[in-house]
């Protein structure tokens, strides 16, 4: 009889998951230093006791036998897809000396030549921001998903709510429409652990109706009351047709809201600009006096529709122009564009408008607030298109016209107003996000387009938050954008750009332009295979990350607490493996940057005395986090406190949860400033010789414009789209083999998915091996799966599969198709307003082998 093993340690340790971006709060069951189980943290206000398959499977990434545990040096100078780097193990000392030498050389000459590429915003974000600022490079990209991310979401959210993120209010809404989004029901930022139960409760208690607009009957659609299949890239037309039904057929709109909180009353002249008085003040038409008066004049009673005369010119309130504009989108025209039946469009718009209950109020915590229990939300499916910015604005108009913005039941900015921050009133009375949360470029007050200084050429996208899709072209042709330097070094971590951006071949050629690439890696993925030096990084269960539930995004909105957590290590990393941010902070000493680092740390993070870092001595990374915590939360709430107690909560006041009735600044329904930026961008691009740079999307009101896949399809008769899988996030979850087993047992997970009627017309059958080709000469091959839940014109390709990295091929199994390999890198597919890359492409499908 075997002797039972003595157990020395058996504990549940709190931390924060990082298998996607939701930052779910978890408990890790650790026995003798080994994680054996992960569960949700029942004390969490974020996700409670719930954690998804990805979170459970994190253990398998932690104990993946192919983890990088020693520094590696490339010995094969040739780089490319499938090329063996011929790694050689080197010492930490050698690796650190090589990296520090290159960093110092760059910093001493031109700091711009360093490029940092990472999607590790929760770990790198705060300390990395400090590090990059101290180093002096403007070239940091926070994500490969900058192609298909919030490109046309964040500018709208900043403008309307004053926040980076926005969410439906599932606590009080009764009618929710999701456009190209699996909000609450899938991975990434949509927090299913926290939101799915709220959605379920909304349906049980209030009979909430959920409508999902998507070409593919995804996880969210499968849970919805109604799935509306739509032709890809046409959501703008659907939204504008619905607005037209509300405004011009049903007369449903919130006049008081539009008058008081938007620029709807602002008079617009024949030139499309605001009408101003001699002092430059924007005018409205005062119904009381029958004269034009400044928008903020005492006692003014603005009109929001009608035609007036000012200075001999015919002028209109902005809302009047919106109302007229959407007449271009009768439901019959929208049906032709979207394939959604006209009757369905009209019905959904009517249901939405009626559910809004305009004029109703709700009493919460003793205060009476407007109640608008109808909401639309959207995500990548609707906006990752050639004219994505217009899609974002068109969809948001639905919330705006019914007054469902930052009020109970409506669409909420996650953190517009807090205990000591709120949006301010900028030029012309318009909303400016609080400086405290505006960590990226914000659209208002307008940025001035100038010749690029950055490798994203973000200066040519003054309305957008980032411009990552420009990276390959700028790396290849910096002089084209007026850059007088080339990137000489890239530091890369937790960002598999080769798989999660488009066109791996084009990206590979672009990365070949960078002479020295350092990757911090847990596993050798496809991008890490391009590195010259690989440094072993910690798994997320081994890291200390400050405040991963970042208050501007990864917390619950609405009637809930504010909360802060820490991603604390639950186990020690393997010997010699260190968190990459710690290594960067160590390198600061090697290159003589500590003084700058600490002074930037103190100033950027507004560290209070006595917690400021002393430039006179080196601080450990944990000490820097401790100083940050104590400065924010007080001396008693340092790192140790967080490790012991984990969650810090404070109540969110009603006016913080639902701030709109308490705010003075207005937000735009007519993008006067956006329109004015178009010619400014054109002037800069003309000066650079970028004659084909199209600025026609810089217009004050949204319009539907076709993607390249929309017309002239000919033999390329289907539109390929990508669809998200709830059990994978980007490409890194494949390092947890349980998820691969799950994927292999899910019929459509590594297939291309077609409607059975479409397949029948083509003589194709379930299980056929097919070739999928594009007009640009791109091809993927995969097994065909048939599913009624696909729009008949669409070929759906799930997830990010098709891994070719040498290590991954050993444990991923069937690689499956890589959707992004179908997307040719070409500037014509980039939205010049939002920088979104068009993620729908016309394809032809042919059988290679019968199934």
């Amino acid at each position: 009889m075997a002797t039972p093993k003595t157990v020395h340690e058996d504990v549940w340790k709190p931390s924060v998951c990082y298998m996607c971006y939701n930052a779910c709060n978890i408990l890790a069951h650790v026995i003798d230093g080994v994680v054996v189980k992960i569960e949700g943290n029942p004390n969490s206000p974020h996700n409670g006791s719930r954690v998804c398959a990805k979170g459970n499977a994190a253990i398998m990434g932690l104990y993946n036998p192919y983890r990088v545990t020693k520094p590696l040096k490339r010995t094969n100078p040739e780089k490319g897809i499938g090329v063996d780097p011929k790694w050689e193990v080197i010492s930490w000392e050698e690796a650190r000396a090589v990296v520090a030498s290159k960093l110092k050389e760059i910093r001493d000459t031109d700091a711009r030549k360093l490029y940092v590429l990472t999607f590790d915003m929760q770990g790198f974000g705060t300390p990395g921001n400090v590090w990059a600022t101290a180093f002096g490079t403007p070239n940091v990209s926070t994500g490969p998903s900058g192609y298909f991310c919030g490109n046309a979401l964040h500018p709208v959210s900043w403008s309307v709510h004053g926040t980076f993120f926005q969410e439906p209010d599932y606590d009080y809404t009764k009618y929710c429409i999701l456009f190209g989004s699996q909000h609450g029901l899938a991975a990434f930022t949509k927090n299913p652990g926290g939101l799915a139960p709220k959605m379920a409760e909304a349906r049980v208690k209030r009979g909430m109706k959920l409508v999902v607009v998507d070409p593919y009957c995804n996880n969210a659609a499968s849970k919805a009351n109604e799935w509306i299949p739509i032709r890809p890239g046409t959501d703008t037309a659907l939204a504008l047709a619905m607005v037209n039904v509300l405004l011009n057929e049903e007369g449903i709109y919130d006049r008081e809201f539009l008058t008081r909180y938007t620029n709807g009353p602002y008079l617009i002249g024949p030139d499309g600009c605001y009408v101003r008085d001699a002092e430059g003040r924007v005018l409205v038409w005062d119904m009381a006096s029958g004269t034009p008066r400044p928008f903020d004049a005492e006692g003014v009673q603005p009109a929001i529709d009608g035609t007036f005369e000012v200075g001999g010119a015919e002028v209109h309130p902005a809302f009047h122009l919106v109302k007229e504009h959407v007449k271009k989108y009768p439901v019959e025209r929208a049906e032709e564009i979207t394939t959604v039946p006209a009757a369905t469009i009209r019905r959904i718009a009517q249901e939405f408008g009626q559910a809004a209950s305009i004029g109703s109020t709700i009493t919460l915590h003793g205060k009476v607030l407007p109640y608008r229990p109808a909401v639309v939300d959207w995500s990548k499916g609707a906006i990752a298109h050639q004219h994505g910015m217009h899609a974002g604005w068109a969809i948001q108009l639905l919330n705006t016209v019914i007054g469902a913005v930052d009020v109970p039941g409506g669409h909420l900015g996650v953190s517009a107003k807090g205990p000591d921050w709120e949006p301010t009133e900028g030029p012309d009375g318009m909303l400016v996000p609080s400086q405290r949360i505006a960590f990226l470029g914000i659209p208002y007050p307008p940025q001035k387009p100038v010749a690029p200084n950055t490798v994203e050429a973000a200066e040519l996208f003054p309305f957008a938050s980032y411009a990552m899709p420009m990276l390959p072209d700028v790396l290849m042709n910096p002089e084209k954008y007026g850059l007088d330097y080339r990137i000489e070094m890239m530091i890369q971590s937790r960002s598999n750009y080769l798989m999660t951006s488009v066109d791996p071949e084009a990206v590979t050629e672009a990365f070949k332009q960078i002479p020295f690439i350092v990757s911090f890696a847990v596993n050798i993925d496809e991008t890490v295979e391009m590195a010259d030096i690989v440094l072993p990084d910690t798994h997320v269960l081994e890291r200390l990350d400050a405040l991963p539930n970042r208050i501007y995004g990864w917390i619950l909105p609405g009637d809930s607490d504010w909360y802060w957590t820490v991603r604390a290590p639950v186990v020690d990393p393997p010997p010699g493996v260190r968190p990459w941010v710690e290594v960067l902070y160590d390198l600061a000493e090697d290159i003589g940057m500590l003084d700058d680092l600490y002074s930037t740390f103190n100033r950027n993070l507004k560290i209070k005395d006595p917690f400021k870092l002393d430039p006179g001595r080196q601080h450990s990374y944990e000490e820097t986090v401790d100083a940050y915590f104590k400065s924010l939360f007080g001396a008693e709430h340092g790192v140790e406190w967080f490790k012991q107690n984990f969650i810090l909560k404070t109540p969110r006041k009603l006016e913080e949860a639902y701030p709109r009735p308490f705010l003075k600044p207005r937000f735009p329904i007519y993008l006067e400033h956006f329109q004015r930026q178009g010619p400014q961008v054109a002037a800069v691009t003309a000066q650079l010789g970028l004659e084909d740079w199209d600025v026609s999307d810089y217009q004050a009101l949204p319009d539907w414009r076709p993607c390249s896949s929309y017309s002239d399809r000919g033999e390329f008769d289907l539109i390929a789209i990508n669809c998200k899988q709830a059990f994978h996030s980007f490409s890194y979850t494949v390092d947890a083999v349980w998820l691969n087993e799950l994927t292999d047992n899910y019929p459509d997970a590594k297939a291309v998915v077609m409607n059975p009627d479409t397949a029948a017309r083509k003589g194709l059958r379930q299980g056929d091996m097919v070739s999928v080709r594009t007009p640009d000469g791109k091809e993927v091959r995969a097994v065909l799966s048939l599913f009624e839940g696909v729009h008949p014109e669409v070929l759906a390709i799930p997830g990010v599969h098709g891994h070719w990295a040498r290590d991954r091929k050993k444990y991923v199994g069937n690689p499956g198709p890589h959707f992004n390999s179908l997307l040719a890198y070409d500037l014509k597919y980039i939205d010049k307003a939002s920088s979104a890359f068009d993620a729908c492409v016309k394809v032809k499908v042919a059988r290679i082998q019968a199934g």
Partner: protein
Amino acid sequence: MKATVTVCYTGAIRTYTGKRSESFDLQEAGNLRALMALLVARYGKGFESRVFVEGGGLNNLARVLVGEVEVPELPVGMDTALEPGSVVTIITITALAGGENLDPGVHEGPGQRHGIRVDQS
């Protein structure tokens, strides 16, 4: 000996100025607004766009300090007079989704603005 003010540059703004710090004759620099106008004239539109937005407000990714006090906290903001020996620091923050988190006001001890609840995990 001339009375001077020192301007220090942190972040990518250095790529426009080509230096980490420089001194200005106080008469030339005047107040903060005049100093900034002088810098814009010297370093051009790229510099201007990193520090200012349309209408003349500060870019949300720029910080300007006199001593250790930021412009929004200066009583007269950009009209602050510069003294002999004043140090003006211009920081352009690298844009990425990090930056400071938000002060919840939980560390004010008794009478704090918000009652704090601490959950033991």
